[in-house]
C-alpha cells in the first residue's frame, strides 16, 4: 500500500507550483478576463519547454512519457494558479484524442508540434445545450466534409487544428478539421470565465480527415473519462486555492474586535469546505491511480472524482466570496476568479448530471 504520488511526481508538483506562483499569479487570470494578457503565448511555449504539454504523451510522439501522475499534478497546479491556458482542452482532450485514435501519419503531423507548443489543438464535442450523448451530435461527416455547428469550443479561436465529433453513417466519428480552412465560420463565444476563450464553429461542408481509431460513441466516452481525471485535479487545485484564500482572510480580517475566523459561522463554514476538499482530494488521487492502470476501475473512479471535485470547487469558491464579505464580490478582488473557473470546469466535459449518471451507471455494474 502506497497511496501517494511518486517522489518524481511530487517534485514535479512542487516545481509547477513554484513556477506558476511566479509566472501565473491570480493577476494573470484577472487580466485575462478582459483581453489575453501579453506573454500568454510565451508562457504556453515555456510550459512546453518544461515538458508539461507532452507529459502524458509517449516519447515517440514528442512527449515526455511521464504518465498519469505527472499529468494530474500539473493539472492540479494549473488549476490552483487559475492559469488562463487550455491545458485540459488542448492537451488532455484534443492531443489525447489524436494520440489514441489517429493514424501514424496524423500523429506525426500534430503531436510533436502540440507537445512543443507550436500548434494549438481544440476538441469540439458540444453542440450547444446538452450533455454528451450520441443523440446530442447532429454534425455530419460525409465524404470527408463536416456540416453542422459546434459550440462552445474551448480555444477554438486560437487552435490550428480541431478534433470534431460527428455522425458518420451509423457511427460517431472523430475528424481533424482546419478551422481556418474553407467551409468554416468561427466566432468567439462569451463565457463565464473569459480567461478561457471559446468559439462557435459553423461548418458547411468543411474538409476534414477522420481519425481511424474512433469508431463509436463509447470511444468518446472513454476519452472523456480519461480527461475527467486531470479535470478533477484542476478543480481540486482551484478548491484548495479558494480555501487557502478564505482561511487567510478569516485570520486577518477583524470585526467586532476579533478576527472573523474566530466566529463559528465562519469556522464551521470553512471546516465544511475543508471536508469537501479532502474528500475530493482522496477521490482524485484514486482516480489518478485508476487512470494510470487504465483498467476497469477507471470509469467509476473518474466519474466519482469529477463529481466530488466539481462540488468541492463550487462550494469553496462561493464560500470564499462569502467569507470575504463586500470586497469578495468586487471585480478587482480575486474570489470571483475561482467562482467563474469552477463553473467552467464543471461544464467543460459534460455537466454534473452527466458525471453523476455515469457514476451510478458504473456502480450498477458493480454492486
Amino acid at each position, binding site marked *: 500500500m502506497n497511496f501517494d504520488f511518486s517522489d518524481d511526481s511530487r517534485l514535479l508538483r512542487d516545481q509547477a507550483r513554484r513556477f506558476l506562483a511566479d509566472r501565473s499569479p491570480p493577476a494573470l487570470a484577472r487580466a485575462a478576463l478582459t483581453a489575453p494578457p501579453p506573454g500568454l503565448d510565451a508562457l504556453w511555449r515555456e510550459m512546453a519547454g518544461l515538458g508539461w504539454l507532452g507529459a502524458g504523451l509517449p516519447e515517440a510522439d514528442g512527449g515526455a512519457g511521464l504518465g498519469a501522475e505527472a499529468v494530474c499534478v500539473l493539472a492540479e497546479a494549473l488549476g490552483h494558479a487559475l492559469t488562463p491556458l487550455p491545458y485540459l482542452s488542448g492537451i488532455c482532450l484534443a492531443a489525447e484524442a489524436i494520440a489514441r485514435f489517429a493514424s501514424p501519419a496524423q500523429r506525426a503531423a500534430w503531436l510533436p508540434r502540440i507537445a512543443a507548443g507550436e500548434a494549438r489543438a481544440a476538441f469540439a464535442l*458540444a453542440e450547444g445545450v446538452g450533455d454528451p450523448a450520441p443523440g446530442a451530435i447532429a454534425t455530419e461527416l460525409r465524404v470527408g466534409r463536416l456540416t453542422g455547428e459546434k459550440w462552445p469550443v474551448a480555444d477554438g479561436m486560437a487552435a490550428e487544428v480541431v478534433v470534431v465529433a460527428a455522425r458518420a453513417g451509423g457511427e460517431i466519428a472523430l475528424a481533424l478539421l482546419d478551422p481556418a480552412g474553407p467551409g468554416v465560420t468561427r466566432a468567439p463565444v*462569451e463565457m*463565464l470565465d473569459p480567461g478561457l476563450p471559446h468559439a462557435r464553429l459553423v461548418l458547411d461542408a468543411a474538409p476534414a480527415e477522420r481519425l481511424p481509431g474512433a469508431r463509436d460513441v463509447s470511444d468518446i466516452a472513454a476519452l472523456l473519462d480519461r480527461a475527467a481525471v486531470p479535470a478533477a485535479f484542476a478543480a481540486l487545485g482551484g478548491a484548495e486555492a479558494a480555501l487557502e484564500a478564505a482561511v487567510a482572510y478569516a485570520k486577518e480580517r477583524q*470585526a467586532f474586535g476579533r478576527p472573523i475566523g474566530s466566529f463559528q459561522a465562519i469556522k464551521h463554514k470553512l471546516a465544511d469546505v475543508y471536508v469537501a476538499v479532502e474528500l475530493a482530494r482522496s477521490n482524485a488521487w484514486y482516480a489518478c491511480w485508476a487512470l494510470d492502470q487504465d483498467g476497469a476501475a477507471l470509469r467509476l473512479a473518474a466519474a466519482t472524482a469529477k463529481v466530488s471535485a466539481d462540488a468541492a470547487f463550487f462550494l469553496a469558491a462561493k464560500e470564499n466570496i462569502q467569507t470575504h464579505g463586500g470586497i469578495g464580490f468586487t471585480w478587482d478582488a480575486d474570489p470571483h476568479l475561482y467562482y467563474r473557473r469552477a463553473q467552467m470546469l464543471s461544464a467543460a466535459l459534460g455537466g454534473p448530471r452527466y458525471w453523476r449518471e455515469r457514476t451510478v451507471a458504473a456502480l450498477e455494474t458493480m454492486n
Partner: protein
Amino acid sequence: MDFDDTPEEAAFRAEARAFLAAHHPRKDRARAAARYGDVDATELARARAWQAAKADAGFAGITWPREWGGRGGSPIQQIIWNQEEAEFDVPYNVFLIGLGMCIPTLMAYADRPVLDRFVAKALRGEEIWCQLFSEPAAGSDVAGLRTRAERDGADWVVNGQKVWTSGAHYCDFGLLLARTDPTVPKHAGLTAFWIDMKAPGVEVRPIHQMSGASHFNEVFFTDLRVPDRQRLGAPGQGWKVALTTLMNERLAVGEPRRPDIHDLIALARAVTLDGSPAIEDKAVRARIAGWWADSAGLTYTRFRTMTALSRGQTPGPENSIAKVVNAAKQQAIAAFGMELLGQAGAVLDPALAPMAALFQEGLLSAPAQRIAGGTDEILRNIIAERVLGLPGDIRVDKDIPFNRAGARG
C-alpha cells in the same frame, strides 16, 4: 381569512393600476433585462420623471403627510401600490434608499426648516439621497467605522472613506455616520450628519462588481467641512440615529432576484434532457417542488405582513427571512439551471445561452445578494437574537475605548 381587498382597498388598487397602465407597459418575464441594470443619465432622467408623475398623482410617499407632498394614506395602500407597481416595467428605483431610509431618519432627527427644505424635493425625485455608513475596515461591524469628524469652530471636518454607497455618483445629499470621539467605546463615539454630496472634499469612485455592474461606490472625504447645523441628534448619539435608519431598511421591499422558481420552470420546459423536456425528469421535479415551497412560503409570509400592517401592527422580522432564503435560493437555482444546460452551462453569451443567459448572470450577481445589506451570517444572528431571544455573541470590544480596542484589520 379573506384575500379580497376591502371596497376601499379595491378602489385604491384600481386607481393605482389605471395610473400605472397609462404610463408603462406590463412586465414581460420573457424579455431580457438590461444586463447590469446600471443607471446612466437617460435612465436617471426617466426615473426622475416617473417619480414626479407619481408625486403629482399622489402615489409617491403614500403614508407621508400631505404637507410634504405625501398622500397621508395607510401602510396597506403603500403595499397595494408596491404590488401593482411591481407588475409594470417602471424605471429602476433610484429613490429607494433616500425615501425609504434617509428621509425617515431626517423626519426623526432634523428640525422643521430642514424638513421643509428637503422632504418634498426628495419625494418628487428632484434630489436624491444616499446612505454613508459602511466602511472598508468595518464591514458587518458597522459601528467599527473610522471616518473622523473633528470639531472646528462651527463646522466639523470630515476625513475618511465610505464604501458600498449605492448611487453615490448621482446623489445630491447623503446621510453620514462618523466617529467624533475615539476615546470612548465604539458605539458611543459616533455622530450623524447630513451632507451635500457635491461639496468640495467629497470624491465618488464607482466599484466594479464581479457581475460587471457598478451599483456601488467608494466615497472619499478630504477635509470636508460640515456645518454643525447639519448634525442629526446629539454628538455621540450617532449609533441611535443609525439604528433608526437601519430599522427602516428592514421595511424596504426588495424585489425577489432572478432567476426565480418561475424562471426555472420555464427553463426546465425549454431544455431537453435525454430526449424529453427537463421538467419531466424526476430529479428536476424534486428540486422544483422544494424551491416552490420556499417561494410560496415567502409570498404568503408577505401576506401575513400586509395583514399586520393593515391592522396597524409593526411587522416582524419577515424581511430577514426573505433575504436569507432568497439569496441562497437565487444562487442555488442559478447553479441548478446551469446543470441543465450541460456543456453550455458556462456560456454567458445572451444570444446563445437559453433565456438570454439569465441563469449565468444570476450566478454572477447572487454572491452580492448574500452579502450586501446584511450578510447571511448577520441576518441569522438577528433572527436568533431578536426573534428567538437567544443570547448575544460575546462582545470583546463593547466596553473598550475605540482607540485602544486591539488589532484592527
